[in-house]
């Protein structure tokens, strides 16, 4: 008798649990986060641009501009620095990894080359593991990073910006567990290779930032599935 009562109670509890599960609202979709890493800062000034400005300053200006554009599109942005502060490379990767970001961009400016350089890590791709090595954590994300590079490349070319794609060994980027790219803005050059627009030119940076923002919005809708 007692056993049949217990079995009945278990059946009722199971039915209630199943019904509750069926009626429960779906879990909220995970917020799409973008990490912007303005490279250098503090004592590390990076390169020096022909305009006299330091690379760290131009990188921060681009980060602020892009953060505003992404924020206006409802995208949550995490930055590694908001001022002329020194942030260690490992700390930058930690910030990116804790954000569980959908895209991570390390922002640079340089006088070498021309147009916009998009770099993915040169680590060979490996299957994802539960405990990746710190210095090569990006290896499991290379395929996604290259896909992100494709989206950014399309958007920048659509804006008539000269784009070169490459692979590099960049400390910090190699430790990020997210689709991660280094974006380097170089001068715009004329036919005779003379500089027509410096990489810290406000209008030029605005064009690049607008293209990157449009690409990230597209990446949010199209590129999140692995």
């Amino acid at each position, binding site marked *: 008798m007692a056993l049949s009562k217990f079995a009945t109670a278990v059946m009722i509890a199971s039915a209630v649990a199943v019904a509750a599960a069926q009626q429960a609202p779906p879990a909220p979709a995970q917020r799409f986060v973008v990490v912007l890493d303005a490279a*250098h800062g503090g004592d*590390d000034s*990076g*390169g*020096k641009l022909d305009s006299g400005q330091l*690379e760290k300053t131009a990188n921060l200006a681009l980060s602020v501009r892009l953060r505003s554009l992404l924020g206006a599109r409802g995208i949550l942005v995490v930055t590694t620095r908001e001022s002329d502060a020194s942030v260690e490379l490992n700390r930058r990767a930690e910030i990116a990894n804790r954000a569980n970001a959908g895209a991570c961009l390390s922002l*640079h400016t*340089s*006088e*070498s*080359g*021309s147009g916009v*350089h998009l*770099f993915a890590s*040169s680590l*060979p791709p490996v299957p994802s593991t539960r405990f990746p090595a710190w210095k090569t954590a990006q290896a499991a994300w290379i395929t996604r990073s290259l896909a992100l590079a494709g989206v950014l490349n399309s958007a920048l070319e659509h804006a008539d910006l000269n784009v*070169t*794609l*490459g*692979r*590099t*060994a*960049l*400390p910090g980027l*190699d430790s990020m567990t997210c689709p991660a790219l*280094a974006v*380097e803005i*170089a001068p715009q050059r004329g036919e005779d*290779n003379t500089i027509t627009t410096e990489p810290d030119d406000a209008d030029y940076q605005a064009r690049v930032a607008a293209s990157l923002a449009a690409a990230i919005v597209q990446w949010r809708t199209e590129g999140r599935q692995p």
Partner: protein
Amino acid sequence: VIPRYQKILFVVLLIASLAMGVVLWQLRERAHKRLVAGESSAPTRAPEVAPAEQATLVAANDADNSLVPQVHSLPLPADPGARARAVLGRLLDLYADPEATHPVPGGAASVTQVFLLPAPGDIQTRDPGAQLAVVNLAGNFAASHPSGLQTETLTLDSMCATLRANLPRVAEVRFLVDGQPRATLAGHADLTRTYLTAAAAPAEGIKP
């Protein structure tokens, strides 16, 4: 009265002392002659010049972020380490030209040494003949290298690809600056990593 045996002993010791003095004088003269001969030992034979050979230099181009192989004729020593240094030196000589497609100051003197060692790694999987090249760069080369992600990456990749083109057994490359490990070349490209030469090889054709 001095005993007779003491007189004889005195004479023997005197003769021995004089003999030793003469021998020492002769040794000194010989040493002096050797020293004088050493000072005047100017080279009597011209140093052997390595014969000119065809070498492939994989040159970087900042304009399109490319690596382009070029064939050059240059004297190449027989020793692999010296050979590696010679080709890298010539590559950096190209970059030292202000009109270069990838301008970097410094030239051949920027490569201080190249050591070739058996490549480390998993004995089960690695090629038994594979070599690791340790390239020691001059400090002023790193200090004067333009700062930037693309330019630094191209410098390292072109050096790796040039080593692979001329010494195919070199599978891995590590870089030192003034004999010491260094975090980055000029603020960007990682110098603590072991570079794989296969990953740096260009895909384009050879430009004579």
